């Protein structure tokens, strides 16, 4: 059994679930900045409050899983992304406690501070995740068994572009989650933001996709596409990824721009998630089998087989259980949020 390959797949799924689930939390968090009043803001947070904690746990599984399954990759990547990781963690702290703290404050200044911390923390966390993604895709300098680059290698025009994609993409996920969970004026506002975010995310993702092709010859080789020529024999094998992405974006466009009245409320979120999924697959196609692009592969960085095996037993038993009770809790809170749903401990 190729345990490193299985674990690469499991961690990729964990990170993907994090992006799809906490992505809408962070998107709603950013949108809270534009809420009309405190009541609308509370409706918006009520749409994510029962589930955000579980959603963020996928990030812990992503980080903890990387440590456990690919300690060398973890040991190289974390110092490489030191500052954005630290700022992301600080941002997640602010947005996490602000869920509770904004209800505890009645003084205008403190309430405004925690509302700002909630939206700002959500934005900063999304932006840092985007910068980290860009820095990851563009490749990491490695010396021996350690990071060998400078403290600001993660900041490039490319990583700024990926940050833009992630931020707009999360706003898209967040606004389509609100279309599902809210009604009336809040839902209308969410539709407006979904339109803007879809436009922004489409442009940013397209730009990132094109730039990725010229980032490393191995990526160009994989896709068979360069700035000047297309090798159709190669491209045809991976072509379904961009084609499906384009189709999903077109469908989403119809659902939230052209005929929103004909779209069931659950569909925009599902389609947005689909766009993320295909974009993510595209990255996987570009980078496989590197988990420290383009220096170390999943096999070079993996933990011992007996460690991977032990964890696989745990994951095989626990992941289905986790998915079942997570699904149960989501179904428990299914339906539109109503005033008074919010817990204001």
């Amino acid at each position, binding site marked *: 059994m190729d345990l490193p390959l299985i674990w690469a797949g499991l961690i990729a799924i964990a990170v993907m679930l994090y992006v799809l689930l906490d992505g809408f939390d962070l998107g709603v968090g950013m949108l809270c900045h534009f809420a009309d009043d405190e009541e609308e803001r509370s409706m918006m947070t009520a749409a994510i*409050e*029962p589930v955000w*904690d*579980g959603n963020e*746990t996928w*990030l*812990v*599984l992503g*980080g*903890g899983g*990387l*440590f*456990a399954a690919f*300690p*060398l990759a*973890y*040991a190289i*990547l*974390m*110092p490489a992304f*030191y*500052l954005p*990781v*630290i*700022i992301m*963690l*600080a941002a*997640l702290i*602010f947005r*996490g*406690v602000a869920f*509770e*703290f904004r209800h*505890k*404050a*009645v*003084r205008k200044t403190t309430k405004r501070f925690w509302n700002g911390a909630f939206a700002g923390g959500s934005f900063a966390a999304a932006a840092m995740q985007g910068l980290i993604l860009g820095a990851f895709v563009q490749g990491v300098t490695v010396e021996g068994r*350690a*990071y060998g680059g400078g*403290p600001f290698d993660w900041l490039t025009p490319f990583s700024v572009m990926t940050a833009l994609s992630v931020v707009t993409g999360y706003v898209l996920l967040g606004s389509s989650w609100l279309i599902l969970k809210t009604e009336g004026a809040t839902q209308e506002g969410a539709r407006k933001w979904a339109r803007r975010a879809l436009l922004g995310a489409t442009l940013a993702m397209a730009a990132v996709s094109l730039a990725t092709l010229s980032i490393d010859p191995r990526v160009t080789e994989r896709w068979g596409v360069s700035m000047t020529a297309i090798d159709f024999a190669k491209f045809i094998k991976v072509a379904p990824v961009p084609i499906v992405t384009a189709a999903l974006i077109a469908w989403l466009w119809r659902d939230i721009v052209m005929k929103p009245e004909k779209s069931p409320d659950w569909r925009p979120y599902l389609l947005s998630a689909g766009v993320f999924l295909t974009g993510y697959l595209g990255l996987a196609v570009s980078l496989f089998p590197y988990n420290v692009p383009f220096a170390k592969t999943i096999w070079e960085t993996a*933990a*011992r087989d*007996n*460690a991977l095996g*032990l*964890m696989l037993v*745990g994951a095989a038993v*626990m*992941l289905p259980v*986790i998915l079942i*009770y*997570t699904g149960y*809790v989501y179904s*428990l*809170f299914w339906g539109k949020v109503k*005033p008074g*749903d919010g*817990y*204001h*401990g």
Partner: protein
Amino acid sequence: MELDALILSRLQFAFVVAFHIMFPAFTIGLASFLAVCEALWLKTKRDVFLKLYLHWVKIFALAFAMGVVSGVVMSYQFGTNWSVFSDKAGSVIGPLLGYEVLTAFFLEATFLGVMLFGWKRVGPRLHFIATCAVAIGTTISAFWILSANSWMQTPAGYAIDAEGKFYATDWLEVIFNPSFPSRFVHMMLAAYITTAAVVMAAGAVQVLRDRVTQPTRYQMRMAAGTLALLMPLQIWAGHWSGEVAHHHQPAKIAAMEGWWETADKQGTILFGIPDEEAETTRLKLEIPNTSDYLFAGGDELRGLKDFPKEDRPPVFITFWAFRIMVGAGLGLLAIGWWGLWLWRKDRIQSPGLFHWLAVPGGALGFIAVISGWVTAEVGRQPYTVYGALRTEDSVAPVVVGQVGASLLIFMIVYAIVFTAGVVYMGRIATRGFDDQPAGPPEKERRAPGSPLGSVDEPAETAEDEA
């Protein structure tokens, strides 16, 4: 340069982990307290237990959120600042942390949603199951993290390959390493005791403010009973932990006790100032030849001079952190027994000296937990994996400016979050059970059929706005 990044990384880890541990220590105990309250409510149908539950669950939500966000930080610290340790020990420590995420974190985080928001959506029994799931999750989490940390204290069941990387040869020996059972018991008891002390302190404030209602009396009795019962057990568990360290980490014991010379019998130093340069403990107040009572078996007790200087832990910190922990523990024992006596005399609800002391006593559990962890972790130095991997060989190749910046960020963020959290929790905890929220009710607060509807109240009151 290297040394500076090392020291800053150590400071940063100490800071973020000390900040973090307060919240799990409190929420492990509080989750169990809530489960007990809800069970008693379901069994007896008495309103007082539901009131206690609804009161403390608000504080639980705050503390849990702070524990989660500071815990996410921890899962990245190993990589950002201790990447060489991660690379070398990842194949042993990693799976333990992986199991913690899989078996505990998801359980806690997911069912917390039901616990806080599910009253309207599930029946009381299912809600109780959610509370239990959270309480069990916190315990499982403590199991794995104590196992991982204990392995770093007393590594077992491993070998080291040609590249210097650790790997497991026997997982059961790794998980149930020599110091794990005693340290797990010690930490779980510490969590229950810490929570009981906070519950007692909150009750004492209500007594002093003349806000006593039935739930106040109940929570103080429950806290007094818990402290009185568990503190003696805790002293035994601490002693057990010391016995294990005596066998596996004799340098740590020598530093904790301030022993420099090796001897068959050692004294108990109540007070002293260890001087690492002169290799002696100054100004010591010592009860001689008491070691027979501490460590059975009569084997030779090694002093610090028996270890090369570069293998000794920092003595002053280890020595004093240990004494602070013991002192705080004795204070908690006193609060428990005194409280029990007042309960018997039916005076636990009448203000007195006890209540004035019990209020600051609410901090003693946290003081004991932090100083106990300082004893354990500083006493493990100069190693990350005791006897096998040195701290200076574990640090990440990050430049000093980065670590300085991140430490500053964490200090500012945690100062803001901690201050606000403590203020908000304190306001809720010390408020009487029959106090109406002083803020103007903006809308109908009670949602139909929802006991939690009454929870919708701000922590700050109108007075604070003035």
